[in-house]
């Protein structure tokens, strides 16, 4: 098959084909050509997140983000969605811990509309009182559904243990009592102090020339200013666990229990990240969920899913194993998982295992960049973690340079089978 020709046509993103422009008001615009596409994707974030939520008003950033498209100075809720949906376009805005992210897509001809709606939602929301109350009911229903979800409840309990006393340990979508307390004035005030062009990043990928994409973003968002925009809050330090801490959340009437075991992990920008990531792939991702899948699912037949994850962001991350098992098998599954973690921090992974995961990482990169959404997300990631425009070009070399020794040392820095956060949610 015509491999050689193909590879030369489709190189990985790099400094020579990524357009990156900083607008005078602080917005960073990224773009890359995708000539064959009929559609366009926008993706990015503003520097407003749940980290600023007061304890008694947890969920404020989440509520604010959800309310941005409920009415702006120029358009009502129904006018906003009529414009979007009539074009077959979509735009969503949601809060994370550090940032509020947006994702939109449209046919190429509707990019201007998408940018205009994004601008209005981010900079001119009016938070109509009736819409705020309607949204509150929807959020509260979402929280009631969450309270019945064994996976979500185990995850919240895990965060409470591993991030005890740290803002990361709080549920970013809030609690029923805190969401009930948030007023429209809180939304207005949070928006005024946190939303602004400083630190905003936007990637535009698809049926638009990158130069034009930058011009269009500048024309719509280039005049946005907010002199009241706060600096992001500082992140307090985290504390490591002294021993294993377990929490069980009881949900009567459920058929299955979800379990999560783990500890703190590296930040995304940490020098440990690549070794931890490849190690995690061996532990509980590669093929059918790595060693964990092999032990818990394939050999013991205990779970439909059992895998490990490394969640690394701007601050400290988490490294954990999760599984859904028959409530009667919880202790057995925990024993098997703990044994795999013990092996993982006791002996080096084999050169074959490491090579498998290295090949997997290198081979899947072009697949992840197949769609406009994949490229946009890759560009935003470069900016969020300051990885450098040559990151994807250097990626193979970075992946290949990790050794079994690196993985063992890194694993030992983060994982200890006798000092784990263990969260269980089930009947």
């Amino acid at each position, binding site marked *: 098959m015509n491999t050689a020709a193909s590879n030369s046509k489709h190189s990985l993103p790099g400094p020579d084909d990524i357009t990156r422009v900083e607008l005078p008001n602080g917005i960073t615009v990224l773009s890359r050509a995708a000539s064959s596409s009929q559609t366009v994707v926008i993706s990015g974030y503003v520097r407003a997140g749940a980290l600023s939520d007061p304890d008694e008003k947890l969920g404020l950033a989440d509520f604010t983000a959800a309310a941005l498209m409920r009415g702006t100075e120029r358009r009502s809720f129904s006018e906003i969605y009529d414009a979007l949906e*009539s074009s*077959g376009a979509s735009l969503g805005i949601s809060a994370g811990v550090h940032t509020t992210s947006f994702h939109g897509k449209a046919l190429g001809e509707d990019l201007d509309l998408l940018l205009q709606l994004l601008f209005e939602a981010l900079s001119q929301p009016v938070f109509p009182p009736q819409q705020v109350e309607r949204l509150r009911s929807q959020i509260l229903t979402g929280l009631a559904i969450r309270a019945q979800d064994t996976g979500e409840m185990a995850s919240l309990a895990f965060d409470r243990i591993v991030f005890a006393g740290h803002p990361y340990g709080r549920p970013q979508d809030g609690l029923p009592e805190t969401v009930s307390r948030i007023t429209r004035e809180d939304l207005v005030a949070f928006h005024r102090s946190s939303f602004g062009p400083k630190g905003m990043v936007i990637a535009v990928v698809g049926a638009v020339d990158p130069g034009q994409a930058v011009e269009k973003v500048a024309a719509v968002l280039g005049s946005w200013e907010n002199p009241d925009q706060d600096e992001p809050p500082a992140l307090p330090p985290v504390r490591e666990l002294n021993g294993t801490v377990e929490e069980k959340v009881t949900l009567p009437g459920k058929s299955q229990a979800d379990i999560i075991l783990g500890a703190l992990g590296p930040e995304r920008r940490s020098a440990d990240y690549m070794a931890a990531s490849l190690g995690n792939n061996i532990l509980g991702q590669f093929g059918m969920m790595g060693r964990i899948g092999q032990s818990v699912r394939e050999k013991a037949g205990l779970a439909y899913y059992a895998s490990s994850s490394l969640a690394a962001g701007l601050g400290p991350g988490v490294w954990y194993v999760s599984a859904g098992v028959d409530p009667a098998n919880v202790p057995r599954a925990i024993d098997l998982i703990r044994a795999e973690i013990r092996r993982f921090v006791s002996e080096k992974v084999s050169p074959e295992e490491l090579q498998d995961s290295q090949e*997997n990482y290198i081979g899947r990169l072009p697949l992840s960049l197949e769609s406009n959404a994949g490229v946009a997300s890759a560009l935003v990631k470069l900016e969020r973690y300051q990885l450098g425009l040559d990151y994807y070009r250097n990626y193979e070399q970075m992946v290949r340079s990790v050794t079994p020794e690196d993985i063992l040392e890194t694993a030992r820095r983060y994982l200890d089978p006798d000092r784990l956060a263990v969260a269980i949610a089930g009947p």
Partner: protein
Amino acid sequence: MSDAITRIHLSNGLLVLLKEIHTAPIISHWIWYRVGSRNEIPGYTGISHWVEHMQFKGTPQFPAGVLDREISRQGGYWNAFTHLDWTTYFETLPVDKIDLALRLEADRMTNSLFTEEDVASERTVIISERQGNENEPLFRLSEEVQAAAFRVSPYHHEVIGDMVDLYHIQRDDLYQHYRRYYVPNNAVLAVAGDFDTPAMLERIRKLYEPIPAGEVPPSPNRPEPEQNGERRVTVEGPGDTTYVQVSYHAPAASDPDFYPYTVLDSLLTGPNNLNLFGGGISNKTSRLYEALVDRELAVSISGGLQATIDPFLHTILTIPHPQRSPDEVLAALDEEILRLHQEQPSPDDLARAVKQARALFAYGSESITNQAYWLGFSEMFASYDWFLTYLDNLAAVTPEDIQRVAQKYLRPQNRVVGIYRPVENGAVPE
């Protein structure tokens, strides 16, 4: 983008569809078998899905572990799905690695082992999968609605199967099901991506043509009799949230009514996304969103229609506002449906639905995997022409068609209303 494809039958009856796409160095390979929960009988529900699981347990040439290791080493992704009418396996790989998928799928069409030991460990995995589903109120509700809607048709049961059958099915049952349905003349091979058609076809012939044709399994023939009166089911379970599911018997995908019904569904709850990859869009200007959510009778609304061989269900799902009852929600829903019976929608409403469908098609075509999916999926209930003419057929729908289809299908006598009622502490009476 060109729509030119190659569609031929090999001498053993295997239908092959190929589509060259040269936008990324990727190939996606799908093998489809005409077997799903529709082909199952009581006592053996869930067997098709279980066979799908066993297909990952290895052959002499590709023992378990070797299989997924080989694909993953190439950076590929792969998965399998079992549904009402079909079971499918796909691999998406960098262009120079696709031969692995071709060899693997040709091999496991006939050579999977199904050892007793693997059957035993997979039994508990699948039971765990079902328990995970049972944790979800919406699974519990939809399972009961589906069972109430189909008394005769094999669409009666969920794809995962009933728990009692998951305990009862044995190794030989699974193996016989596999040998009976996994024959080339009951399969469709679809490949899309960065290849050259003559070379790809030659390779496919070499690998797949030696597999002998089998006896084509008979198609189940237990059509559901017409429903004559609304059916209601209630499911009680843990939680604080009430769910209401309203399901109407809907036309099969090959029925001409399917197109106007698709537009009708789009008007009611937003555009139906038939893509497997590539998300949909919001539905906040749909009629039922305005009638239920904007009026604060409900906090969410969604709906959809599936493309199936036999008539299946058009489902509307809503969560009543905490201060409202399911009956208030149903009354408002019926008001909107009555409006569709009485008034034809405007041509603008129709044009909008068609533009939305066009946009969803464009999003779906961004992914080579999704394009390969359509090549085979459309053959499961119609043919690839169905996909090619889909947008034109939607554009040809008239306001009169919408009204006629609303009157024909959206009747209380033709529906099942299901209500999930939360009970204190999840204390479901045993």
